[in-house]
């Protein structure tokens, strides 16, 4: 594996030509039907949910939505979901349980939306309730880190039976900019922060917070999307087979233990 620095990984994870969630859905699933809205107040474009089939079996899919340029990013709040998005996820998760579909999430967000309107609608409660729902959800959950995963805003989609990280994805308690800003009162020290935060896929695998790394094709994921998707498809198939073979009690006990050990 090449010796990229943590900061270079962060840059790769955020590259504008990196596949977005709709690309993963198009390449890995069939029959995708997007289900909008939280049934409470609104529909958050920054977090999508829907139902699809993976090699013939129905699954619930959810993921952070990022744009590729300024206009498309403004439309999805740069991938930062608000309470409406997290409550839409809770609704999708409960339906996954009801209809015995595995839940597959795709994580690519700098964090939860830090706006006044998000606070007014209970951003903290919305994320906490995701963790509450997912920790007891009676169906398998697989989380895939495709780009950047920042803070509780990422964890809300990341409490899973298996956490899969693409080689150049990162996962951290806060964005390196936010981390540097809080600890050193200087967001411009983000590169230094990335170096000490231990946020790469290798770090997370060593910690036991990621279960598997999907290697990215040489030459980059944008130019070799087919190869990336083929590799990820194989991992998803094997992981779904493993998890679907477990009885619910074992599945939930293993999930509890997975997080209890930290």
């Amino acid at each position, binding site marked *: 594996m090449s010796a990229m620095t943590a900061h270079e990984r962060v840059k790769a994870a955020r590259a504008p030509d990196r596949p977005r969630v709709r690309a993963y859905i198009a390449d890995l699933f069939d029959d995708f039907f997007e289900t909008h809205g939280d049934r409470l107040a609104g529909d958050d474009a920054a977090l999508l949910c829907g139902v699809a089939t993976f090699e013939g079996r129905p699954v619930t899919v959810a993921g952070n939505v990022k744009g590729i340029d300024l206009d498309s990013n403004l439309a999805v709040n740069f991938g930062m979901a608000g309470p409406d998005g997290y409550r839409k996820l809770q609704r999708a998760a409960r339906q996954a349980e009801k209809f015995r579909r595995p839940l597959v999430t795709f994580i690519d967000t700098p964090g939860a939306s830090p*706006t*006044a309107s998000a*606070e007014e609608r209970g*951003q903290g409660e919305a994320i906490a309730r995701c*963790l509450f729902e997912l920790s007891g959800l009676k169906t398998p959950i697989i989380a895939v880190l495709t780009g950047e995963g920042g803070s509780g805003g990422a*964890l809300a989609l990341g409490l899973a039976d298996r956490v899969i990280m693409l080689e150049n994805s990162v996962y951290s*308690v*806060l964005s390196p900019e936010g*981390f540097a800003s809080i600890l050193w009162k200087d967001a411009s020290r983000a590169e230094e922060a990335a170096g000490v935060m231990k946020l790469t896929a290798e770090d997370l695998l060593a910690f036991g917070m990621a279960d598997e790394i999907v290697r990215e094709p040489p030459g980059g994921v944008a130019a070799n999307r087919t190869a990336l998707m083929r590799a990820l498809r194989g991992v998803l198939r094997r992981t779904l087979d493993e998890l679907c073979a477990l009885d619910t009690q074992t599945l939930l006990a293993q999930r509890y233990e997975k997080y209890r050990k*930290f």
Partner: protein
Amino acid sequence: MDNIFSAFTNRRRVLDALKNTHRSRVPAEPPCPSCGQSAAITALRLCSKCGHHYAISAALRLDKLLDDGGVALFEDIPSRDPLNFPAYGEKLAAAREKTGLGDAYCVREGAISGRRVIAAALEPEFMMGSMGTAVGEAVTRAIERAGALRLPLIIISASGGARMQEGMFSLMQMAKTSAALRAFSDSGGLFISILTNPTTGGVTASFASLGDVTLAEPGALIGFAGPRVIEQTIGAKLPAGFQSAQFQLAHGFVDAIVPRDQLRSALVRLLKLHPETAAAV
């Protein structure tokens, strides 16, 4: 791993010294930030003129809340430094010296007017009550013990959120505590969450927001993102009272605002409304 910090030997002595200072009525040195008067501060750390809620230590809170103060649990959970973060060890040592605690928590088993409970409080003076592995472990053990003994659980939060120095290990505490609460809730356990100044970040986005009943202290700052981050994001000043306990009540996220000197009686009433189940031991 990283079992680098041994138990703090004179913890009890420091704790006692703190208690004694707080127990006697001492004149407020600087004027009260709410009423401006140099009024005495009560044993519960309230302004005797206007009721302003001063910060209060976790230990003193539980001393006042529980019959005879209860019995301390899980005092020696080691803090960890999984990132070998620069100067974190020194920061922890200084916080221990200042608070007399091993990390930013107190957990006790005790009773409120005779009704047995498990109660935990976060310590705002210990690195802003931030949640790293030790705090997350203490909260999780408190939840699991309440579940095993079928006792009501009370957690008093005061926290700036995740402890940055422990990186992803801090984030995992949100999952760990929330999963423990899910199991506790599924088993029929009663969790009363009490939000005090400040409750923000990863603590708000995990166990603190998962109460069956959620109470807040008057004037407490409660939110996910801190006001400074929001102001930077939206490029404007927030109105006065944004994210206050009163704001959270108005937006539907707390059941009641309860002044500190009425908390014990409020809990007595709530506990009476949730009688012991037959299976209670």
